[in-house]
């Protein structure tokens, strides 16, 4: 029971945590790309 419950909890939390980190990395990538683009346009 304990093992199954632990896997259940770790699984759900793990998927959301993984996707949250991926979300942040998408945001960060777009921020960096936007900055680089605007710098390029300005110069």
């Amino acid at each position: 029971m304990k093992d199954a419950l632990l896997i259940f909890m770790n699984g759900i939390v793990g998927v959301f945590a993984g996707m949250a980190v991926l979300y942040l990395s998408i945001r960060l990538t777009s921020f960096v790309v936007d900055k680089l683009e605007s710098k390029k346009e300005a110069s």
Partner: protein
Amino acid sequence: MNESMFALVDSLGFLSLTPGMLVMWIIGFTLIFLAIAKEYEPLLLLPIGFGILLANLPMTHLMEPGEGLIWRFYHYGIEWEVIPPLIFLGLGALTDFGPLLAQPRLIFLGAAAQAGVYITFFVAWAIGFDLQEAATIGIIGGADGPTTIFLASNLAPHLLASCAVAAYSYMAMVPIIQPPIMKLLTSEKERKIKMKRGRKVGRKEKMLFPIVSAVVILLIVPASAPLIAMFMLGNLFREAKVVERLSGAAQNELMNIVTIFLGVSIGATMTADSFLKKEALFIFFLGLFAFMISTATGVLLAKLMNLFTKNKINPLIGAAGVSAVPMAARVAHKVGAEADKKNYLLMFAMGPNIAGVIGTVIAAGIFLMLLK
């Protein structure tokens, strides 16, 4: 003379036919019929159906370990974990991450749909399957065939055939299974929500995504490496625009070739002895349950997100968080169009749909990390 006659008669397949084999023929013919007449996932159900037929013809030795032709496809393709990652290479080359990058918040809908995987895991365990078997059954809820096969071959190879057929059958039945759940959980007003277009995504960002996400995901869930690595490599082929030949080969020739081997091998594992058990019935029932829960949790998270956001999400696209690309996105669009003909949800639904693929692979990776 008489001896050779007897030997000839003994080697006739007819005499070794069993009632179980005949039942499997019916299953095989049904899948072939569904593939040809109804066009339900024909690329897979057709070779799977034929593989079932072959595996249940006595004396052919096609699945004889060490010598059978189809056994070799199965052994080197699936047991060696070659085919599912190659399919992911092709899927990556076919996938446009644009809709997801335009509205990154939709990624959470792909995560929500994985709740069905874990809830089903728990239910399967509670009714008597061991942890590895329960995980393999739960992953059917992710509606991703290659991931189901990958996890099954690692954790519960004896359930591989039933789980793979259940996953592909339910993927084919997305237009039948999902709409009632979507309608039940949403109001007419919610189904009419028109979403605002996301930002424009440039080439550089699309090109960086497979590299960044491969690094990020593999640092978090290294066990998902075979699938994620190939998925992102295929996508990099696509977005780099300098290796059109490789991208084309991954999308077409390679994908088609491995699909043939995958389908026939999976079908050929479905012998009467291994398939006609009450466990198979449970697997089909639990697979359907997983699929329904995944659909519901995707829709419910979209509704929850709407409580906190100004820019509303049409909750129907939450159902596309189960992978089944692009069928689940098309279904979300179709149900939305029934409420408002001018509401074009397809591009928005592709976001959670693609996120669902990544979510299912992460879920499978977590199972592997905890159970292998």
